């Protein structure tokens, strides 16, 4: 899923300061799963805004809505009738959610309340680890299913650097060395020799060659 973290309240408050009528829009998919932008978090942030305004003797109008998916236009339709009544949308969606709303709502300012971080897995309740950078050229099978682009701090393709200690990365001792994991897994599955070949340079054109990537699937379009 896509993971995100809520911005500090002071930053959100500063961004919303010029506005009195605030529409807080959450998303019920990824960011709800990682407890950053679902219905609960929307309610929490809305109350914080109301309380804070109350303390400052300001009157504000805060409305809460959580869409099933903020990144799909059909779900955004739901807030069309509300938009005119508000000065700003405070989005608790990921970067795709904010931009999808901007695409279909040209006249209203949208403020992001989250910092979108990564494509991640849930390791345990409350712990999400980044796994994928969306490079567009998946070679996980060649790296014992551990992505060196994402999980090695240097994104090395050809084995560990000289800096790991006790299986931990030089950059952060809490981070396991991805190459330590790759080699151990290769060894355990009897594939270590596959590491002998030098992996050629990556084709970054698949990531950033021609600006934002777009998938067009004719077979998926509605006639």
């Amino acid at each position, binding site marked *: 899923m896509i993971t995100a973290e809520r911005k500090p309240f002071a930053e959100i408050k500063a961004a919303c300061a010029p506005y009195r009528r605030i529409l807080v829009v959450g998303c019920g998919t990824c960011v709800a799963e990682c407890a950053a932008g679902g219905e609960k978090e929307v309610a929490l942030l809305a109350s914080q805004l109301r309380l804070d305004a109350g303390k400052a003797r300001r009157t504000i109008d805060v409305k809460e809505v959580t869409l099933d998916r903020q990144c799909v236009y059909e779900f955004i339709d739901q807030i069309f009738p509300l938009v005119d009544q508000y000065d700003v949308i405070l989005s608790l969606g990921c970067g795709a959610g904010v931009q999808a709303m901007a695409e279909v709502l040209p006249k209203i300012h949208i403020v992001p309340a989250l910092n979108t971080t990564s494509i991640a897995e849930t390791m345990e309740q409350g712990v999400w680890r980044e796994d994928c950078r969306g490079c567009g050229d998946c070679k996980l099978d060649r790296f014992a299913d551990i992505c060196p682009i994402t999980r090695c701090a*240097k994104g090395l393709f050809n084995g560990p650097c*000289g800096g790991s200690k006790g299986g931990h990365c030089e950059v952060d001792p809490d981070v396991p060395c991805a190459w330590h994991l790759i080699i151990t897994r290769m060894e355990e599955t009897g594939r270590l020799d596959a590491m002998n070949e030098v992996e050629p340079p990556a084709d970054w054109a698949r990531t950033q060659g021609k600006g934002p990537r777009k998938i067009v699937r004719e077979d998926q379009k509605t006639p």
Partner: protein
Amino acid sequence: MIESRLKKVLAAGHFAVTAECGPPKGADPEVIRKKGNLLKGFVDSVNVTDNQTGVVRLSSLAACAILREEGLDPVLQMVTRDRNRIALQSDVLGASALGIRNILCLSGDHQSLGNQKGAKGVFDLDSMQLLQTVRQMRDKGIMLGGDRLNANPALFVGAVENPFGDPQGYRVARLAKKIRAGAEFIQTQCIYNLARFSEFMTQVRDRGLDSKVFILGGITPLKSIRMAEFMRDSVAGMDVPDEIIARMKGVPAKEQRQEGIKIAVETIRALKELKGVHGVHIMAIEWEEVVPTLVEEAGLSPRPDV
């Protein structure tokens, strides 16, 4: 035609001596000239670090060009952290045009360890891919993507290896991979644990790698017990055993530099006797003036005529 002195010394079967020169945090070329002239005559070649530990310094390429002017044989260290394949290949050509004849290919310390923590780490290529690229440019006159060069760069190509890094069982295989990628000489991480380094060399010889690449053992003289402890605890991939710590601790503060020199000289002498080791690489961090002493006391002076 300028030739690599390092290559000639090694090819002639001499025990080579290289030393590291850290460029200044400023634009004064005199600092480089001074450091270069301290080393002149005592070493075969001088490595110039490339923004080591991610701290901005005068560029390695510029410092190498200055050393070349001073009549030294520079080794251009090039990390993949700061430049993409366009800039790397361009600088490889530029280095050769400036008369630089040696290159050391590294990935580089992570930018978060330096003084530009917000920098974007490039790592477009890794050190293996850079080695392969430089070899292809030199030997076939082809750059990445297949375009032909109209003049090939003339460079003796090296890489680093840390015999003390993790995973331990993989270090020799990694060395073999660097040789396969095109490394002609190897400079190792600082050696304080001679026993462990000897074990590494035994594995290197068992795989016949010592006849495929020139190996220069890394030496960093310790200035103080504080430095020894810092190296042990805070420098990534370093192995400083207890007996070295005990030796440094065992002498009063004002004699610690002398003890550090003694340890370094003993290590160089031991490496000279170790089969498969073709030279030493002295990294006297901000202490370049000690290099002549080490070289003389280790019996490696004068340097051979080649």
